[in-house]
């Protein structure tokens, strides 16, 4: 069972619990004191030493406190690496408590798979001496240009209470090419990708269990959101599909999925959108026409379709009309 603040009471309990966690973590104290609290498990162990928290399929709102994306951590013999941190300091504090419920080993790395607020806004509670924040070498630039706006919008959507303590923590380690992070007895391979979901996507592969954290290069159930390049994304998923993995963790969707089967629905979605947009461009149709007709056959296949799909079409159109 996961912590899902679904009604007002749960929400108060969630925020109350995380406020204590947040206060503890921001004060730099060991969260062990609060770890004993009776919250249900925040994460699932999907493979030995690999823990994943499954976020809700929702927009940011005060009730979910920004808990709308997947995050996780990997425990080595000497140290821990956290992969993504959720959409607010509250979510980050819960994730930190979940780590501390499992191990007292130092959190040596926090890896952000890309710049979106639902994956990086939980960074703050992890900030302390000795913790390295790693990301794609373009992550810092992407965040620099957007952080002001992201913070403003998120504060508005979450409300002051759920937003409390949230701020931008920039990467301290810029990943230019594939590199290894050693956790003792196992290592993580970080691979920066070409522009796809965003221009700063990075995937993380655990050597010990052959588990790959795909970040938002992989969406399941939740409609994909395009903030990079549809051509790049289609090409990248084709490449990655050819690289076997024991299991993958999507940025949105189940905690663990089979690869490359998990990629099929998103590949289909992106291909349908690209193909239909190209047809309209060829017919000299317009962007406004495209957003109302393209990809409608995919509507029933995805959650949050109405919230994001038209925007994806708009972005795809603006990109593909330059072909």
């Amino acid at each position: 069972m996961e912590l899902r603040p679904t009604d007002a009471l749960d929400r108060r309990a969630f925020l109350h619990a995380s406020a204590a966690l947040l206060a503890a973590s921001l004060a730099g104290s060991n969260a062990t004191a609060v770890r004993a609290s009776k919250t249900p498990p925040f994460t699932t162990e999907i493979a030995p030493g690999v823990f994943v928290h499954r976020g809700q399929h929702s927009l940011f709102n005060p009730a979910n406190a920004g808990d709308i994306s997947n995050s996780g951590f990997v425990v080595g013999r000497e140290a821990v690496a956290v992969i993504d941190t959720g959409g607010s300091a509250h979510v980050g504090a819960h994730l930190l408590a979940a780590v501390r419920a499992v191990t007292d080993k130092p959190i040596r790395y926090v890896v952000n798979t890309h710049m979106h607020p639902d994956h990086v806004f939980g960074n703050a509670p992890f900030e302390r001496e000795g913790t390295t924040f790693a990301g794609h070498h373009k992550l810092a630039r992407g965040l620099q240009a957007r952080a002001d706006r992201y913070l403003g919008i998120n504060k508005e959507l979450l409300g002051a209470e759920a937003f409390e303590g949230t701020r931008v923590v920039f990467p301290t380690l810029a990943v230019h090419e594939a590199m290894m992070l050693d956790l003792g007895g196992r290592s993580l391979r970080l691979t920066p990708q070409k522009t796809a979901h965003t221009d700063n996507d990075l995937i993380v592969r655990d050597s010990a269990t052959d588990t790959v954290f795909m970040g938002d290069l992989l969406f399941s159930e939740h409609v994909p959101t395009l903030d990079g390049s549809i051509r790049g994304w289609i090409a990248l998923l084709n490449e990655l599909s050819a690289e076997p993995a024991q299991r993958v963790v999507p940025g949105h969707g189940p905690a663990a999925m089979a690869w490359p089967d998990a990629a099929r629905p998103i590949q289909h979605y992106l291909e349908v959108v690209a193909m239909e947009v190209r047809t309209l461009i060829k017919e000299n149709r317009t962007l406004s026409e495209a957003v109302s007709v393209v990809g409608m056959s995919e509507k029933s296949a995805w959650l949050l379709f109405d919230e994001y799909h038209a925007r994806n079409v708009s972005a795809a159109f603006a990109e593909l009309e330059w072909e």
Partner: protein
Amino acid sequence: MLRQTNAGKMATHANRRLTAALHDRSRHWLSRHLRLLASLLVLALGTLLGAQSKALAADDEDVWPALREAVFGAREVVESATSVILEAPYRAEDAALVPITIRIPAAVSASAQKVTLLIDKNPAAVAAVFTFGPAAGAGERVISTRVRVDMYSNIRAVVEMADGKLLMATKFVKAAGGCSAPALKDTDAVLAEAGKMQVKIIDTAAGDRVREAQVKIRHPQYSGLQLNQATGFYIPAKFLRTIEISRGSDVIFRVDGGISLSEDPNIRFTYAPGGDESIEVVAEDIEGKRFSGRSAPKGS
């Protein structure tokens, strides 16, 4: 949301007046250099105010009376649904890429001199002024482009007629954050290709009476309102100031644009057939950099 202060309000209006002055081509005393200076001043003001761009005008405030005065002075602006038609989505999918279309019916177009596109609550309310030339055509004139919308706002198209009359169409658009948001999805790709143009003549059924073409220009259109969180400085403004589109040597229209035109400016428009059939485009950004492009001849 931050509330607007009186000082903010005055500064906003000053900003708008400058913007208006910048875009009012009748003020010939403003030399090119002065205009550039003024544009930089507008940017500086815009930058100062940009931090609170969403706070510039409260959601429910009617800024139109002040804006109208700033842009058109004491002249009367008449709402006329039959003289000019403005198409815009009620709710925009992407505030940084809001498609709009202006239609000027044939009965009006013969004496239409220019059309001003305004977005009431944007930091620089005058998005673009299209000044028609001899090749604009006597039939229905249609111009489609994409704009940034910074907060829920009215968008207006005001046509200026030969006799000085001002005719207006208005549409309300729900969108927010379009000016301060970097829409750049692939920053490197856009910067590497800045100035690249695609000019295409579109085959239409009515091709013998009205022609149609599309101009696309790669340009980041930096608004000067995008804050670099790490440095605390705003990313300097860099946008296209003018775009002149001609059929051969006959001008179709000239666009005096600002930060409200979306990244990679995209204009689709009608024009009159005749003469040299190639479409020529010359654009200039606020740094004085010039870009040019040309279509393949029609039918090739």
